[in-house]
């Protein structure tokens, strides 16, 4: 598989009055062309900050300290801002969680789509309008000629998110970063959205970075999965391997702690598996493996040294002393 985007050893820290939060602490991720990569983790794991780092949109007081982000032969962290702006939206675009705040309420849907098109392509207004309408058709919004004249608040949440998706696919980017794209939506709408995204990616061979805390979503949509914890990648592999044969205690813990529709009744489980404790503060990470205070299989060395990157199976890797 051709690698379209590669993150190497990324470190993004936040310098606040309370200390330094190591939001992303040495993360490496590879995405292949047309691949849907699920990035899962709970709050504070660094998945959103990683996404923002790719597009160099990390807000103050965050800063990308070190690392490389390779895209089509260039290192995104080293190119000048002007060139970066040509990449944003055009070759790598992003879908955010809350469509209401990512769409400008002061402009109509059509105006926003057309603006996106005309920033990156030298086309006329009429052509841009055509492009916008055909994109709305692709995301299955009925009556698109009327809709492009409407304002975001006139659309439902599901529609707005579809517009966002349309905007993301509009310029035919090679990579789309989707940060919790369906979390704010109802389950039945979520199903519609995913269906559309899946169809579009199949058609255009776009790579998708699907960032979410919803394991079900990942299981049903992704090809490969990356599991993050406290700013680091703890496991990665093909989706079947992760869901059926996870190695890392955190991944296992997560899998076992979520109630699965249909499962608990059949297995008469009364108690969900609990991972003891809670996510560590990014200002004060434990020594060695960041998961060690909560790990049921913690050994002495886990509290002293960071675990090495080990291979568990084909394309299946993890950072854990149990497999070294």
């Amino acid at each position, binding site marked *: 598989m051709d690698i379209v985007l590669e993150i190497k050893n990324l470190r993004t820290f936040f310098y606040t009055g309370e200390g330094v939060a190591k939001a992303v602490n040495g993360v490496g991720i590879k995405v292949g062309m047309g691949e849907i990569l699920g990035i899962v983790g709970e709050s504070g794991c660094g998945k959103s900050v990683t996404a923002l780092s790719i597009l160099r949109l990390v807000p103050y007081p965050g800063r990308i300290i070190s690392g490389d982000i390779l895209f089509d032969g260039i290192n995104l962290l080293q190119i000048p801002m002007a060139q970066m702006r040509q990449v944003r939206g055009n070759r790598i675009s992003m879908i955010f969680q809350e469509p209401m705040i990512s769409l400008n309420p002061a402009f109509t849907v059509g105006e926003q789509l057309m603006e996106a098109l005309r920033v990156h392509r030298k086309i006329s207004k009429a052509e841009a309008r055509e492009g916008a309408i055909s994109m709305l058709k692709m995301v299955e919004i009925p009556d698109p000629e009327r809709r492009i004249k409407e304002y975001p608040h006139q659309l439902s949440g599901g529609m707005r998110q579809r517009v966002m998706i349309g905007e993301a696919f509009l310029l035919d980017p090679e990579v789309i970063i989707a940060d919790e794209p369906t979390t704010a939506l109802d389950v039945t709408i979520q199903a519609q959205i995913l269906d559309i995204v899946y169809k579009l990616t199949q058609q255009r061979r776009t790579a998708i970075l699907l960032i979410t805390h919803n394991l079900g979503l990942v299981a*049903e949509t992704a090809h490969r999965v990356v599991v993050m914890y406290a700013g680091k990648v703890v496991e990665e592999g093909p989706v079947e391997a992760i*869901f059926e044969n996870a190695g890392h205690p955190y991944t296992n*813990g997560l899998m076992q702690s979520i109630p699965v529709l249909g499962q608990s*009744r059949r297995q008469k489980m009364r108690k969900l598996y609990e991972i003891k404790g809670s996510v560590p503060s990014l200002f004060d990470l434990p020594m060695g493996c960041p998961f060690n205070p909560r790990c049921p299989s913690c050994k002495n060395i886990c509290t002293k040294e960071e675990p090495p990157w080990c291979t568990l199976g084909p394309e299946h890797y993890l950072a854990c002393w149990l497999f070294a």
Partner: protein
Amino acid sequence: MQDMKAILKIVNLKKYFPLQRGILSRHYDFVRAVDGVFFEIYQGETLGLVGESGSGKSTIGRCILRLIDPTEGQIWFQGRDITRLSRKDMRPIRKSIQIIFQDPYSSLNPRMTVRHIVGEGLKRNTNMDAKARRERILEIMEKVGLLPEHYDRYPHEFSGGQRQRIGIARAIVLNPELVVADEPLSALDVSIQAQVVNLLEKLKEDLRLSYLFISHDLSVVEHISDRIAVMYLGKLVELAPTARLYNNPKHPYTISLLSAVPIPKVGRNRQRIILRGDIPSSLKPPDGCRFHPRCFKAIEICSQLEPDWKDTGSNHFAACHLF
């Protein structure tokens, strides 16, 4: 289940919110948030209430607690009609019905310590002296998994999961019979959700509570509930014991809802039913059966007549013309 005591009974509950049409207009449109709901909660059971946005589930929770006053209908608690009780008369009953909120950040007063948050109910509703209150608060704190040293701390010093525990402590300190849990897990991380779910179940056993568990997360509801009620646009569409609802859903909405839930198991070969269109607004619900515009099994009568609530056997009810 029939011979068990029903501690809560909702009869034809309706709640309409008026929406002024224009600045000077005299006419009001109504948001029909809850439009004729019937159900009962039995002693010691957890009734799950599921629905998407606009279903009215949160409104029902607040009506039960009389935080909102119903437009029509009745609420019976322990055999007593509490629908129209004055605030004064409602006070002694409040000890027995409590609520846990969704947002662990806005549900705790940032200027009050754990001691005051949990102790407020005690001060108001009991004659316990300061020492007795302190003991009781510490006892409850232990039950929910908080440490004694948390007694004088402020909410901002805790994590989301811990704050939710404080909220739970506040709800159970008065030994209620019924606890309404309004999306108590939605704002929490996945691994913390498991802790809180287990805590809620343990408390239910230890303190013999009954829960109305309101949520949009079907997987959790299925795990924790004895029976599940499904709502759509202000009306109840199906009500059944959990296993039956999952294994044999009757209402087309329930079927599509269940099929839409992503399952953390690999293989995209599930028969998924994708509903067309968006959830309509509660201002102008569709005629006849509210679900008919999106229903994949709709027949002609569905657009004309609202379906009755039918008993399809084994305590399994549904509102659909197909039965």
